[in-house]
């Protein structure tokens, strides 16, 4: 399964506001910890190692293979 890199979230502004609100009032350390937990939860939901690998590569900023 290819990693979805085209728009896929309904009402993106709402999601973005939710994401920031979740971090509201947290120290840098607590925010970092929350982000780490979030990554693990999302990764488990995806499950597929191949998709996860593509996501890691995309996050690193490596240009997609031609």
């Amino acid at each position, binding site marked *: 399964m290819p990693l979805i890199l085209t728009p896929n979230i309904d009402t993106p502004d709402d999601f973005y506001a939710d994401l920031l609100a979740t971090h509201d009032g947290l120290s840098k350390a607590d925010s*970092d*910890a929350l982000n*780490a*937990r979030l*990554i*693990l*939860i999302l990764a*488990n939901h995806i499950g597929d190692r191949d998709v996860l690998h593509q996501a890691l590569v995309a996050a690193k900023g490596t240009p997609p293979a031609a």
Partner: protein
Amino acid sequence: MKKIFEIPLYPYARSTDQDAPEAIRHRVVIVGAGPIGLAAAIDLAQQGIEAIVLDDNDKVSFGSRAICFAKRTLEIADRLGCGQPMVDKGVVWNLGKVFFGDRKVYDFNLLPEDGHKRPAFINLQQYYFEEYLVNRAHALQAQGAPIEIRGRNKVTAVEQHDDHTTLHIDTPDGPYQIEADWLIACDGAGSPIRSMLGLDFVGRVFEDNFLIADVVMDADFPTERWFWFDPPFNQGQSALLHKQPDGVWRIDLQLGWDIDKEHEKKPENVIPRLKAMLGEDVKFDLEWVSIYTFQCRRMEKFRHNRVLFAGDSAHQVSPFGARGANSGLQDTDNLIWKLKLVIDGQAAETLLDSYDTERVHGAQENIMNSSRSTDFITPKSDTSRLFRDAVLDLSEHHAFARPLVNSGRLSLPCTYDGSPLNTADALDGPARTRPGSACPDVMLGGDSLLSALGNGFTLLTLNADAPDTLDEAGITVPRLALSSDDAALRDRYLGAADSAVYLIRPDQHVAARWPRFDEAETRAAIRRAIGKE
């Protein structure tokens, strides 16, 4: 009462070799009477090949180093004739608890798979493990088998020749020399033989120290493995509590990098640490305390012409995951049948190169696994700690995070995928018994499949015809015929197939498998498994 590791089990005795005018030549000389050297000697002697073991000491391992012995090791010990006392004495456990900070995050039950003669692992002090091997060696010797353990025989120099090695040995009576057709260096992680030959041992040192203590106590802690990440009594570090026989408990306390080892090792400093962990009123005696820095490293090659390295001399791992002695036993299990065929003239010396290929592969796998555990237990960067703590935090309420918690992975036998001795898989069968795999056990009435395999090649047939024996290239391969009325047998050896034929090596690894017997293919697979194709 004296502890077993305080009694000389193979005291120095003068050998007639020391009075010979010229160095006496032996078939196989093994340097080191640790678990690996002893296993190698027993394996050889059981098959009638002379094995002389030299050790600079005369006792078993001081204190308890290894405690966790895995099923595969017990199966190998069964083949060597000394698995039973180990299992009788060892502590079997399946339950564990994981703590993070001041709270317990979860319990686990390893629920062992049914249909195996031996448990997934036992806890047993290394000195007992070695004692049972020494007893077995002495029993073989008493029956006239060509095995001898020479205590207080320290190897001080070796000279390599094309077809033998000369050893210079120091004893309480002064020096002497012997020659060995084959030398197996089982002289531990600090291997003097490796240094004498100027060979490298490269890898990674983990910048951390661990206090390892064995305490004797009458406490009613349950028979469980307890692992703490960042506990209040050892902040920022880890701790482990694990039960051994005789009321001895193993405690590991991570101490960090910048410490004064001599200071930390003093009982007046160790005891308060242990009290903080166990509780003020728990009464205990210190049996043994040591401080270790762990490393993962290996030799580039384990075979150097007629000198073969096995065990810690060839590879060293951090103890998380218990892969030191467990993997060393797999080394000799792999090596000895090959060496026997070479000595008996049934295989070319190049068969021994497959020892190198297969066991370097095993060492790499073990180093990878124990490095991963070490990285989880002692995170090396802020980000690595962030994710580690996130995993532990989530593990309290979410089952998905628990498989990510890594306080050491159970040592499993290596599968020799891609080995030159394998024949391409021709069966649509279970992945766990593909060529290269160690045969999983199955209970057959009163006994087990692995006990029925013996020390040589076997042709295992399931719902398939084949001749009772097959002779190829000087090797006699008996057939073991089974039918698949047992669910575990079907599950482990047939899968979706109706019938199967397995060629099994003397070390109980699968060399080839087919849906039915084909004489030409089986003969070719036997030749391939002994390096003749």
